[in-house]
């Protein structure tokens, strides 16, 4: 019990640290750290908090969330919204969009953690493939676009992000291939 409470406090502290100016401004200086560090960490914090919710809360939520459908819908809406270049720019220039970002990304992580285990394995497979395809599509798009998508970020930043997305997507694909061909589990996906 003690350990569990302690972990939640740590997660909360991490959330607050991300929201405070030094770390927030540092991570938002570049499109790469904004999208590949800050947002994923916020989602992971949400995911972990979601995991450690009391069982009776989970049961209550689950009755609204059969097969994880509601939670996945919510997560996808939030994800789509923050993929709009406008939304990311707004988060940098307006404090209330920033606040909404911190809250909704956290909720996204939480709803993923509550819904993913309930999803049918085939649906899980489809989502994984779709996430992977989004990585590759965005990576290719960022690398190829001659113009900046975000007014607050440099074109060179956008290109690096594109490369990293393609690289990450490729690594993921290779991990899958290994798993299918040799049964080696490099990462748990």
């Amino acid at each position, binding site marked *: 019990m003690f350990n569990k409470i302690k972990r939640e406090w740590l997660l909360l502290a991490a959330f607050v640290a991300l929201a405070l100016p030094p770390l927030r401004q540092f991570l938002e200086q570049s499109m790469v750290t904004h999208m590949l560090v800050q947002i994923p960490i916020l989602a992971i914090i949400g995911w972990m908090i979601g995991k450690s919710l009391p069982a009776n809360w989970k049961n209550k939520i689950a009755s609204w969330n059969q097969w994880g459908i*509601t939670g996945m819908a919510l997560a996808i809406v939030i994800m789509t*919204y923050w993929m709009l270049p406008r939304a990311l720019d707004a988060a940098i220039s307006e404090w209330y969009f920033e606040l909404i970002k911190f809250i909704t990304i956290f909720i996204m992580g939480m709803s993923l953690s509550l819904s993913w285990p309930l999803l049918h394995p085939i649906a899980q497979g489809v989502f994984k493939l779709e996430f992977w395809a989004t990585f590759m599509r965005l990576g290719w798009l960022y690398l190829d676009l001659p113009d900046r998508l975000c007014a607050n970020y440099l074109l060179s930043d956008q290109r690096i992000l594109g490369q990293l997305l393609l690289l990450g997507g490729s690594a993921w694909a290779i991990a899958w291939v290994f798993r299918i061909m040799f049964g080696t589990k490099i990462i748990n996906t």
Partner: protein
Amino acid sequence: MRTFLATTLIVIAGLLILWISTDGGRAYTVEEARRLEVRENPRPIPNWRLQNQDSEMIALHDFRNQFIVIDFFYTSCPSVCLILGSSLKELQKDFSSELEKNNLKLISISFDPEKDTPQKLREYLSHFSANLKYWMAARPTSSSQKEAILDFFKVIVIPDEYGGYTHSAGYHVIDRTGRLVAIFGIEQLNELKEYLTQSLNKEHVQQD
């Protein structure tokens, strides 16, 4: 049943939010949004007083009854401002008769007023063989004024990795009544010309 209800609600609310926040699927980036906003709601420009290349003070309302094309730049800009500059040069040639009749003015506003002295502005203009009667360069007189101007036009300027700036680049059109009525991207020079030709002609017809 509960799941069905909750999911339907989330999907509908989500689509609505996405629809609203992209102006009905028409603007996905800040740049698209500011162009769209100006087209739909032209806004009157404040009467800022700027210092031009001859160290004279000019006020934007001095050019009432003319169309103005404004671009934002800084003189040490290595890339995009050069395209803007040569495009204005093209406008100066193509619209020479309108410029001569005082129906149109070209103004380049620097957002780096500390470095861009009147001397620098003059050099910049002469680099593009600007006719100073038709095309002037100007700088804000204080940093608060600079911020107000950038804010009004929604031009975002960020420092780049070479000690310069990256910025929203475009042509901002002010009509005869002093309203910002259109913004064209750097790639839309032809659309800008068409727009100017049409607007200037329309006004003539009305005058006749």
